C-alpha cells in the first residue's frame, strides 16, 4: 500500500515541448485516481513518469515515502497496464501472467501455480493455455490486469484502460475495474480523456490542461462546481451552458435576464462572493435547467432543436439576445420545435466565473 507524492514535477521533451509544468500532486493510499484531460495535456506523460519510463526534468516523485525519482521502473514496485495491453504474443496466458515472477527468479512450478491462481481470480481459468491473439479484447484486458497483479505492486498504473474495448464492453469493464480496485485496495492511477469514465470510476480526479492540474477533487465536486471555465467546459456529457454576463452592484445580468444576489438563493456560491466583478461568464448545466420553470434567472426564447438522449431530451433554446441555452427535459415533458419557452437554471446551481475564468467562491 502506498501513497504517491509529486513535487514540482517538470518534464520537458528534447524538442523543447513542456509536457508537465511544475506539477504538485498527492495521491492518497488506496485511492482510485483519475488523470483526466484532453489529448496532449500531459496526463500520459505524468503516468509514464510515475512508472519511470520517462526521466523527469525537475522535481521529485515519492512512492510510499520513498524517493523514486531516479530509480529504474523495475525498482519502483509499480505495475503498469498499457493501452494496447502489451501482452507478449509468443507466450500463453499463463506465461504472460507469470512473467513478472520469472523476472523475480521465482521457480517455474511456483510461478505457474501463482499465475493460475491470479488468472482464476479474474475468471481466466479456461483460457490459461491460449495465446493473446486468441482472446477477445475484454479477455486480453483481464490478462493484462492479472499480469500486473501477479507482481503484487504497491501502485497500479493504467493507461487508457477502456479505450481498446467496444462501447458495450466498456461499461462492463468499468464496473469490473471499480470492483477489482476496491477488493484489492491498491492505489491505482489511471489516465483517461473520457470525463464520464473518470466520473464513474475514480475516487479523486485531477483535470489537466497543458501540463498543469486545473482542478483536483472528487467526481461530485468536479461535476458540481468546476473551479474554472476549462473544467466546466470539459466535464459533463452535455456541454455546460456558458454565457457572457456582467456582475455589478450585486446584480448579475445575462443579456436581458438578470438576478440579484438575494434572489439567487443562499446556495449560489457567487452571491456571497464578489459584488463587483464586471465581465463574467455565467454557467449552469443543462441537467440543472428547467424548461418553463420558475427561477430567479430566466431566459426567454424559442426551441431550436431537440436531441433525444434516451430517457431525456436535450432542448436547445435560442434566446432573444441570440444566445443558445440548453436544458435537459425528462421524458414526457417534451416541448415542440419552434415553441416559445422560458429556461431557468435551478437556484443554487448557477456558477459565475470572473474574467480570468476562475470560479467566484463564497
Amino acid at each position: 500500500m502506498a501513497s504517491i507524492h509529486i513535487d514540482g514535477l517538470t518534464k520537458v521533451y528534447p524538442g523543447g515541448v513542456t509536457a508537465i509544468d511544475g506539477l504538485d500532486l498527492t495521491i492518497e493510499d488506496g485511492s482510485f485516481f483519475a488523470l483526466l484531460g484532453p489529448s496532449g495535456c500531459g496526463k500520459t506523460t505524468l503516468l509514464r513518469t510515475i512508472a519511470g519510463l520517462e526521466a523527469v526534468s525537475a522535481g521529485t516523485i515519492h512512492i510510499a515515502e520513498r524517493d523514486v525519482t531516479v530509480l529504474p521502473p523495475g525498482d519502483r514496485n509499480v505495475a503498469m497496464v498499457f493501452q494496447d495491453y502489451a501482452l507478449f504474443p509468443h507466450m500463453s496466458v499463463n506465461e504472460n501472467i507469470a512473467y513478472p515472477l520469472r523476472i523475480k527468479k521465482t521457480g517455474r512450478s511456483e510461478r505457474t501455480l501463482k499465475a493460475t491462481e491470479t488468472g482464476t481470480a479474474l475468471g481466466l481459468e479456461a483460457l490459461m493455455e491460449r495465446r493473446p491473439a486468441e482472446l477477445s479484447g475484454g479477455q486480453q484486458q483481464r490478462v493484462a490486469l492479472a499480469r500486473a497483479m501477479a507482481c503484487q505492486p504497491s501502485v497500479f498504473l493504467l493507461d487508457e484502460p477502456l479505450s481498446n474495448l467496444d462501447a458495450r464492453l466498456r461499461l462492463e469493464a468499468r464496473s469490473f475495474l471499480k470492483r477489482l480496485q476496491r477488493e484489492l485496495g491498491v492505489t491505482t492511477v489511471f489516465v483517461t480523456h473520457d470525463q464520464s469514465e473518470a466520473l464513474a470510476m475514480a475516487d479523486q480526479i485531477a483535470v489537466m490542461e497543458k501540463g498543469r492540474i486545473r482542478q483536483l477533487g472528487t467526481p461530485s465536486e468536479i461535476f458540481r462546481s468546476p473551479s474554472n471555465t476549462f473544467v466546466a467546459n470539459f466535464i459533463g456529457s452535455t456541454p455546460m451552458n456558458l454565457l457572457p454576463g456582467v456582475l455589478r452592484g450585486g446584480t448579475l445580468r445575462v443579456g436581458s435576464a438578470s438576478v440579484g444576489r438575494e434572489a439567487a438563493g443562499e446556495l449560489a456560491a457567487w452571491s456571497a462572493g464578489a459584488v463587483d466583478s464586471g465581465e463574467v461568464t455565467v454557467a449552469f448545466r443543462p441537467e440543472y435547467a428547467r424548461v418553463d420553470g420558475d427561477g430567479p434567472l430566466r431566459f426567454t426564447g424559442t426551441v431550436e432543436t431537440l436531441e433525444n438522449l434516451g430517457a431525456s431530451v436535450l432542448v436547445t433554446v435560442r434566446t432573444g439576445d441570440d444566445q443558445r441555452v440548453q436544458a435537459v427535459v425528462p421524458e414526457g415533458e417534451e416541448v415542440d420545435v419552434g415553441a416559445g419557452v422560458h429556461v431557468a437554471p435551478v437556484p443554487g446551481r448557477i456558477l459565475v466565473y470572473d474574467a480570468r475564468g476562475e470560479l467566484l467562491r463564497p
Partner: protein
Amino acid sequence: MTPRTVLRRLALTAFLSIATAFWALPLLWLVTAPFDRRPGLTVSWPDWTLENFQRLAENPYAFSSLKNSVILAGGSMIGVTILAALAAYSLSRVRIPGRNALLYGLLLLSSIVTGTAAMVPIFQLMFSLNLIDDRSGVILVFIGGLLPAAIFILKDFMDATPKSYEESARVFGASSMQVLRHVMLPIVRPGLATIAVWTLVNVWSDFLISYILLRDPAKIPAGVVMYTFYSEGGQANLPLISAFSLVYALPVVALYLFVNRRYGFRFHGGIKS
C-alpha cells in the same frame, strides 16, 4: 476476344514457356545427369546407374569438403545472427545521429567486402592477421560482409515491434538483455530465421573467398572442391561433377523447405496480434 488479344496472349505464353525452359533445363540436368552412365552437357533420358555416386564416395575430398562447408556456413550463420540481433535491437531503439546514413553506408560497403574487388586487400588483411588457411578467417570475412544486410533486414522487424512490449517488461524489472531474450527475439523469430538461412546459403555457395584464403585441401569447402574435379587430360569430370552437384544442392533445398514450413520467410517486420 479480338484476334489482337489472342495474338498477345499467344506471344506472352510463348515467351513465358521459353523463359521457363531456360531456367528449368539446368535443374533438369541436375536431377538427371548424376544418374546417367555417360553424363554430358545436354539433358537426355538417363541410362540409369548409381555408379557416379560410388565414384564420388571414393574421392578423398568430396565428403570432407561438405563437412568443411557445414563448419564455415554454420559458424558464419551463428556469428551473423547473434551480432545482427544485438546490433539491430540497439539501432532500432537508441537514437544516434546519422543512424540511417551509417546503416546505408555499411550496406553499400558490405557488397564490396564479399565481392571480387576487395579480394586483394582482404587477402592482405588476413595475411597480416595470420589467418590464411584458417577457417575462422573465412568465417570472419563472411560475418563482416553479410552483417550489414542482416542488420538491415532484422532492424525492420525490431522497428515493427510495439515499444509497449518492451516498456511493459521493463516496468516488471527486466534488464535490457532480458527484454531482448524474452520479448524481442521470440517476436522477431521469422526475421532471425530469414537472415540465418540467407547467411547459410551465401556461405554454402561461395567459391572465391574460400579459394583465396584456404590452402590445405583438407579444409576447403564443397564449392572449391568442385573446381578440382578434372580428369588428367584437363577435361571436366562430368560424372563426378554432376553427382557432387546434386549432393551439394540437396541440403540447401531441404533447409529451405524446413525453415519455410517452420517459420515462414519474411523480409519485413510486423506483428499479428
